[in-house]
């Protein structure tokens, strides 16, 4: 609904060519690919006897539906339908998106995945917290590292003592 009022306002002030969100075509393409993969994957399944429906029918419907929706999405995108990004307490949609920060956060998570078995949760968790603070533009790195280490070690002991779940100790095996 905001789309509509926005469009009305821009028409009043200055006539602009209709906006298009071409990135949305990428989303439509991705949905179509997932739909096709789903259909293909289902076609490879064997159908057991005494099962008139079998494991294929539902994925066929879901994958087919996804392809149809992808086509519809592409059509409305080309007709100038623009998505409305989700608002929130800390979200400022008036400025452009800052994808560098997002990329940094993804990198921090990838480091977490790569190191958690080797270094253990108590170390990797600390890196994760401090790294995420850094990615989000924190100026107090030393404090973040201290907070991160405290959080990580405390959560390790919390899970071990409180819930009886020993998280991977990693290189701190025997120390914790």
């Amino acid at each position, binding site marked *: *609904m905001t789309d509509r009022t926005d469009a009305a306002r821009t028409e009043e002030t200055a006539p602009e060519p209709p906006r298009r969100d071409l990135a*949305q075509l990428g*989303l439509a393409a991705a*949905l179509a690919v997932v739909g096709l*993969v*789903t259909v293909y*994957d289902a076609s490879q*399944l*064997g159908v*057991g006897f005494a*099962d*008139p*429906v*079998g494991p294929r029918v*539902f*994925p066929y419907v*879901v994958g087919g*539906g*996804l392809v149809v*929706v*992808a086509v*519809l999405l592409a059509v*409305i995108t080309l007709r100038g*339908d623009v*998505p*409305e*990004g*989700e608002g*929130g*307490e*800390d*979200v*400022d949609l008036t*400025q452009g*998106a*800052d994808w560098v*920060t*997002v990329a940094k*956060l*993804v990198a*921090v*998570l990838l480091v977490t*995945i790569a190191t*958690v*078995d080797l270094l253990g*949760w108590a170390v990797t968790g600390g890196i*994760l*917290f401090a790294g*995420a*603070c850094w*990615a*989000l*533009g*924190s100026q107090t790195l030393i404090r*973040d590292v201290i*907070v*991160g280490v405290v959080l990580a070690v405390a959560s390790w002991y919390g*899970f071990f003592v409180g819930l009886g*779940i020993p*998280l991977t100790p990693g290189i701190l095996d025997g120390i914790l």
Partner: protein
Amino acid sequence: MDSAGLLLDGLAAAATPENLMYAALGVLLGTFVGVLPGIGPAMAVALLLPATYALEPTQAFIMFAGIYYGGMYGGSTTSILLNTPGESASVMTAIEGNKMAKSGRAAQALATAAIGSFVAGTIGTLLVVFFAPPLADVAVGIGAPSYFAIMVLALVMTAAVLGASVVRGLAALFTGLTIGLVGLDLNTGQPRLSFGSTHLADRLNIVVVAVGIFALGEALWVAAHLRRTPLQIIPVGRPWMGRDDLRRSWGPWLRGTALGFPFGAIPAGGAEIPTFLSYVTERKLAKGREFGEGAIEGVAGPEAANNASAAGMFVPLLALGIPVTATASVMLAALTNYGIQPGPQLLDEQSDLVWTLLASLLIGNTLLLVLNLPLAPLWARLLRIPRPQLYAGILFFACLGAYATNQDPFDIGLLLAFGLLGLAMRRFGLPVLPLILGVILGPLMEGELREALTISGGDLSGLVDEPLAVVVYGLIALLLVVPRLVRRRVVDEPAARDEELVS
């Protein structure tokens, strides 16, 4: 035994000192996480699920009840003090609540929200007690075709009827259904969409999916659009209300409860519609007095509607095993984690657990009021946590939760994948609710579909050979036509209000 007697037994079981401690812990944790900006009740429940892993089911559910109501209450605090509601259910509370706060009546706004939540939550839970068992009795008799139809109804409602864009709703729904396909086919044991990975063949951990979409997706989306100018936060003392505030609040509380409960029990997107209806009703009844400048009725009504609808969602969840909100989906996932099969038999087979859960909802609701009125100033200070540390913390706990379940880095990878999906959904305006319902209901639907068609020998008429199923399909057809007219009015109303405010 009748429902009242069973509820009293449940209260007795829930009221041991140890269980009360878990309830209080749940309320505190839930409020803590719910107050944090950017976290709604569904995300609070998903993030805190790992904390209940090592507990017995009963204790876990007692803690859960506390977390649930705590998270709901935390959301209203944020919208009153910040005027930027994190979720659709709090939008209406924020309108008058923040105006009250700005004119120095934050304490009264928080008080009417807290007491209204208590009143609505208590009445709502008692209504669940009296509605769920008869519904379950009826539901035991209905077969696979009707179940399938009811699930289609829930999905059509959330994806195609309620959202702003039908295409986006359906895109989210089918994505969710696809995610639900991943893993071994239950009948033939063949892996689907697993690409040779044993991790994927094992079925996705629903908690990882939910935390990825809700928590990580939100954190990444906020990171892309982080507000660089600090929000204005209104200082607040201990909530209290005078005699006049109370006189003006009790009507809206009861009307809000009456509106909220039925909407919570049907798949109507949770509290969005009833809070809106409650706001409009109160504005009409108050004849415009103070509305737009901070009228206490405008906080009391929608907050009550919000909590009553939160209680109402337990009716379909407990009686049918069908979740109708995002939070209910996460709860259902938690139930399944304990090996509990939701459905109409639940009230018979796990009777103790269900009644203890309902009793804990009442206890959690009371504890919420007792703990949070004095603690409100403390909660308000949480809003001042610097944003980099806040979102780093969310990331930290999201990863911890995903990792702790199986201690497998693969789960953090899944978390990241679903986080990126959540980010894309927020960027492209795809609604989250149809997706998460698709993930949960997809496998259940397929089961009912195959059962229905096996009975009929593969004939499609097997889907409509129960009267109830036919009625539900008729209802779906009706729903696809009527709301087009209703929505036009719902869209016009806020526009009209905006104009009033401007003039």
